[in-house]
């Protein structure tokens, strides 16, 4: 059993595409898998053609238990469930701040779900907030999609320093390269520079139109185009993550 948070301080780095495809691949192997869409934009929810129930919102999420149980939805793929996001999540920090033990709330909510699922993925919103801090506590692994640029590298450093600050181990972090463009010289150089750093997986998801198109056909690319280069690169990434999970 493991909770994997897909996170980056920056937006638009392929977090949702990663969460959607990896959770799908996990379920394909017979693992009961839950994807929690924590981002108020609800992109993962949209990709799976799911609409949250009208009554579901931040308050219900933070109550946990049966309030969550009732709102989990099955996707079109056996073994893969989704907890939809709600637009009210945009104010989740304010709600968290009012609670006792505000940094452990998400851990607590996930506890019963850990019994039910083999893998739980958290698709996280960007930014460093109280919610992210909650997620870092709750996650066994923090998976960081990294576009190989200088600024992204800087963001990664910020994340690691933040983890130090809140007393979380850096070893939780797994990095892979995302939206990689072969023709960009800087991408290649950054990757060479970082490849031997601890926690950096030898995997790259190329910048591919097939991934972008997920918004049109609303399915994981690994399900829609299982033979595509995009699907193959996600499979390789998932294998590498499984290897890391087995180590711990």
């Amino acid at each position: 059993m493991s909770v994997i948070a897909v996170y980056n301080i920056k937006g638009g780095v392929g977090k949702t595409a990663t969460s959607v495809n990896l959770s799908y691949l996990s379920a394909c192997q017979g693992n009961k898998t839950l994807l929690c869409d924590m981002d108020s934009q609800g992109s993962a929810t949209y990709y799976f053609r799911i609409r949250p129930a009208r009554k579901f919102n931040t308050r219900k999420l933070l109550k946990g238990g049966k309030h969550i149980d009732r709102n989990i939805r099955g996707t079109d793929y056996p073994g893969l469930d989704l907890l939809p996001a709600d637009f009210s999540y945009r104010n989740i920090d304010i709600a968290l701040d009012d609670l006792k033990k505000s940094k452990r709330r998400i851990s607590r909510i996930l506890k019963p779900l850990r019994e039910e699922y083999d893998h739980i993925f958290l698709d996280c919103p960007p930014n460093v907030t109280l919610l992210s801090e909650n997620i870092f506590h709750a996650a066994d692994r923090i998976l960081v999609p990294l576009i190989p640029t200088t600024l992204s590298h800087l963001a990664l450093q910020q994340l690691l320093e933040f983890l130090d600050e809140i007393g979380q181990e850096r070893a939780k972090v797994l990095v892979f390269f995302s939206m990689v463009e072969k023709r960009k010289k800087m991408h290649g150089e950054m990757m060479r520079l970082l490849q031997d750093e601890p926690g950096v997986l030898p995997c790259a998801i190329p910048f591919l139109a097939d991934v972008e198109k997920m918004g049109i056909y609303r399915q994981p690319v690994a399900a829609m185009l299982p033979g595509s280069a995009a699907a193959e690169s996600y499979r390789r990434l998932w294998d590498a993550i499984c290897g890391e999970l087995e180590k711990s």
Partner: protein
Amino acid sequence: MQELQQDTRCLPESVEMQALIDALADTFAVEIEGAREHVTTWYDTFDWRLYNRGYLLRYSDRHWHLLEYRTGEAVVVARAGAGKKRLFARELPRGRLRSLLAPVLDVRALLLLVSLGSVDTRVRILNRDQKTTVFVEFSRQQVRGTDTVLRTVRLVPVRGYDKALRAVRAFFDDQGVVEQVPPFHTFEQGVQAVGRRPGDYSSRFAVRLDPDLTSRQAAITIYRRLLDTMQVNEEGILRDLDSEFLHDFRVAIRRTRSGLAQMKKVLPADITATMKEEFAYLGRITGPVRDLDVYLLYEHDYRARLPEQLQEGLGSFFADLAEQRRLEQKKLVRALRSPRYRQIVTGWDEYLRSDDPTPSADADKPVIDLARRIIHRRFRRLLKDGLAIGADSPDEDLHRLRIQGKKLRYSLEFFRSLFPEQEMDTVIRQLKRLQNNLGDFNDLSVQQEMLTRYLHGLRPGSRKNMELAAAIGGLLTNLFHEQHRVRERFGKTFARFSSRKNVALFKKLFH
């Protein structure tokens, strides 16, 4: 959550599958996926070890699926190469499947029970977002090698879409597709179509005797059951599927011989005498392969008994045994295909069906009297011989006592159903404990004799034989010490068996 249970229904003869799919498409927004053909194969051991533990094992789409019998839910799914007709636990893919099944299967092989070729059509019920809310799986399965066709529809719910599920259920109710079947429906039907029934074989001897039967009627029932056991195991021996077919076959032979000896005045004297000889012959022709099977099964144990530097030498020893077994198995197959064997089995079969009018001293006596007399006599004998054994008694005395114990055990099992169940369980459990001790002692003797014989046959000189001799020497020492320990435990074990309480129980039941 109750509502999320899967729902499998049988299609009535009158309903045409395509018409039903069309009607479904007229009622709901659907996506019909292309028909998919695949083969599902079910496995179990000959004695249903998986079924008895509430499991089902299926091979399909290049994966093993270990399912829970009652719910049909997967316990383990493991990727594998092609499924075979027969395989042992060690041939299963490494991982949870193997570690779960190895202790259950032990030395028994998984056998292909039945294959079903199916054509599946999956229909997805969609909502306004084109999101799947229910899966409807139509399946037409043909039992390979038969005319049996099974047609089912399975409703697979999607979490959080209960309303859609209720609507689809109502649709099928309206169409008259109402007969729900359990998840193991196709398994049971398939197995039945090839002439078997789950749990139809067990190596335990069990026969229900009516206390009003005459001794002759009871004896015939017992012999009949034993002959059936021999016959159902024949094919497995000829095809050499696993070692237990021959083992069960031989146990049935021994039981029959023991029955003939103990119920000697029940059948006419000439029949008893002839059959005793015939069954002794069957014991002889099946002996060598069984002995070698037993030795071969020791391989793991022998390696564990030796330090690593001596283990190497055992390689050629077991290779030799395997080669010997191959030759003996050939001889055995020839013997079982010979006219003599056929004659014995059909002759006995015909006799058991016939109504032999020849009188015999005990034939018409009530079986309950016969049972008491035999068991009581056997028990007294065992008690007397056992009590006479002291620390200095020769090993032969223990070997003889083991035979006595076996005879008592067989007679208890023959007549078990005539006596109160719980007390019989106690009596047999007590005896079993004693038998285990004597059995271990005997096994260790037999092994030492076998190894000594083998050692004497070795020619010195080569390095290989030297290593082999060293390994056997190591084993002999180890086995000798263990036998000594087993012997030391005998006194205590027998004291327990001959306790006042146990003797009183025997007297109460059989005197």
